[in-house]
């Protein structure tokens, strides 16, 4: 390193020309650094930082899109109002329910699929692709397909009928709509978890299994004492990513709600996201919506923090 640095001093760039304005500019770390950062920084300041600050300030304001000039500061009133709204608590509860149902299910399913396609069996490549296809398909398309499948008189609902399920339009049923959303999330997210787990499984040294086999370990023992410790760190990643995505679910609910208010039928699928969207964008109640977004962010932060503590302690 030091040798080459000495060389660069003795061999001057552009020996025939005097240093031009451009070459002195283009040689300075400071100037080039800022030039390269500038496109990002402008876009970021304009379309991230500025709206972020606006969002924060407006959560303390009474502001409506129809009369932006009449905005006035009302302190914590938006937050107080939200926290007194039973619909908000229902929305938080629904978000938690979706996450509590979908995250463990999709994690276990993802691991199971990864274990299955990691074996020496025929057609494992095809199965891997099949499991992964829902993940790359748009949420709207998958939701649409499932809504069509769960209409009355389809192959699926006729099949369910054999087992005594009468009405299976789950997406329009207040007691099943939330589960319907959770299933959609599991169906799409499991393929992602499978890929992540698969990458982790391929890191496990093969001779570990062989050695355990010689020692007379059963298949379950091998799974319990070799596979599980190996995939444990990646599980934290899989769980935290799907938890955050679970809290952010929007597309599926928007598709199910059709022309109704977001969170239809009758608020059965309202979540923290649809709550702020409904108030902030559909009702154009910017201040109130911004306060709800801040609470949404706060909830995600708390959950992420708790999860990190909980899962780290287990290590």
């Amino acid at each position, binding site marked *: 390193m030091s040798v080459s640095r000495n060389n660069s001093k003795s061999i001057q760039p552009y020996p025939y020309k005097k240093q031009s304005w451009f070459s002195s500019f283009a040689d300075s*770390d400071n100037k080039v650094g800022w030039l390269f950062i500038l*496109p990002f920084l402008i*876009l970021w300041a304009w379309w991230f930082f500025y709206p972020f600050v606006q969002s924060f300030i407006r959560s303390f304001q009474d502001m409506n899109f129809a009369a932006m000039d009449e905005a006035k500061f009302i302190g914590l009133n938006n937050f107080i109002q939200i926290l007194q709204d039973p619909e908000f608590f229902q929305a938080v509860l629904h978000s938690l329910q979706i996450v509590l149902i979908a995250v463990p299910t999709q994690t276990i399913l993802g691991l199971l699929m990864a274990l299955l396609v990691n074996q020496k069996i025929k057609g494992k490549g095809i199965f891997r692709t*099949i499991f992964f296809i829902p993940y790359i398909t748009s949420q709207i398309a998958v939701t649409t397909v499932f809504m*069509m499948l769960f209409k009355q008189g389809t192959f699926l609902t006729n099949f369910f009928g054999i087992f005594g399920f009468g009405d299976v339009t789950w997406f329009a049923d207040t007691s099943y709509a939330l589960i319907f959303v959770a299933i959609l999330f599991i169906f799409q997210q499991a393929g992602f978890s499978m890929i992540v787990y698969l990458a982790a499984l391929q890191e496990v040294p093969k001779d570990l299994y062989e050695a355990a086999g010689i020692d007379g370990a059963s298949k379950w023992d091998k799974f319990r004492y070799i596979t599980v410790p190996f995939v444990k760190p990646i599980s934290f990643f899989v769980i935290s990513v799907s938890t955050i995505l679970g809290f952010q679910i929007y597309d599926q609910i*928007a598709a199910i709600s*059709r022309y109704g208010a977001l969170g239809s039928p009758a608020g059965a699928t309202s979540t923290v996201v649809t709550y702020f969207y409904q108030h902030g964008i559909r009702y154009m109640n910017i201040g109130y919506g911004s306060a709800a977004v801040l609470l949404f962010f706060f909830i995600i932060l708390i959950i992420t923090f708790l999860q990190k503590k909980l899962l780290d302690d287990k290590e």
Partner: protein
Amino acid sequence: MKARKHLALFANYAIIIVLGLLFILPFIYTIYTSLVSTRDVNKLVSITNWTFDNYIMYFTNDAYNVPRWFLNTTIMTGAVIVGNLIVNPLAAFALAKLNFKGKKIIYWIVLATMMVPYHMILIPVYVNMANLGWLNTFLALVIPFLYQSLYIFMLRQFFVTVPNEFMEAARIDGMSKIGLFWKIVYPLARSPLITMSILAFAGTWNSYLIPSTLTNTPKMYVLVVGLNSVKDAVFENTALIMAGVVLTTLPILIFFFLFQKQYIEGISSSGIKG
């Protein structure tokens, strides 16, 4: 012992086949239904009764302007990827290899922005777009998304691994820092840039929240938003809707089969969809 092994193998196949069917049957149902006439929906009919009428509808009926939506989606996705191919590597290279004042702050900004869900700023972005008169224009769908802090971080991690000897060698050749970036480092980053483009393609092509918020005239819909509007408008016409699902999903599936290897590698290394 041998019998037990056979049984285990059989169980393995049984589980994987059942799971596989569970995952693939909805798609088979979709394709099949899109190819039959409305009165044959949910009946098994022979191939001679199949028809492309549902598909033709999307190209002849002005109410479902699929060619236009396809064009909109392509323009949006293309522009976003081109932007990301310029803005992200520039910033990432500066963060990895150039010592400029304030570098630490910028790095911190990139990391912090990565953690914040877009929902956080959606309302003010919508209001600002409306005030600029940008709603229902490509500006709204493209400009804020020309960079992505996650990809800047990913590319920075790559650029850090480029040996400093490259920089020294370039200096000896009398090359400027800018020339060094374009002529040497940028071509070196081919593979992470391809991964980034693939993730950005999938993420942008499938996005619904942002386009559905920033556009509300059918002429400016992207495919996914258009599909949702068709589904709501003709909810009882399953066959027509399913043809829409196929048309919307086909491009991304073709794309996936072309780049399957890089896409899966990208996901398992970065772990995040665009």
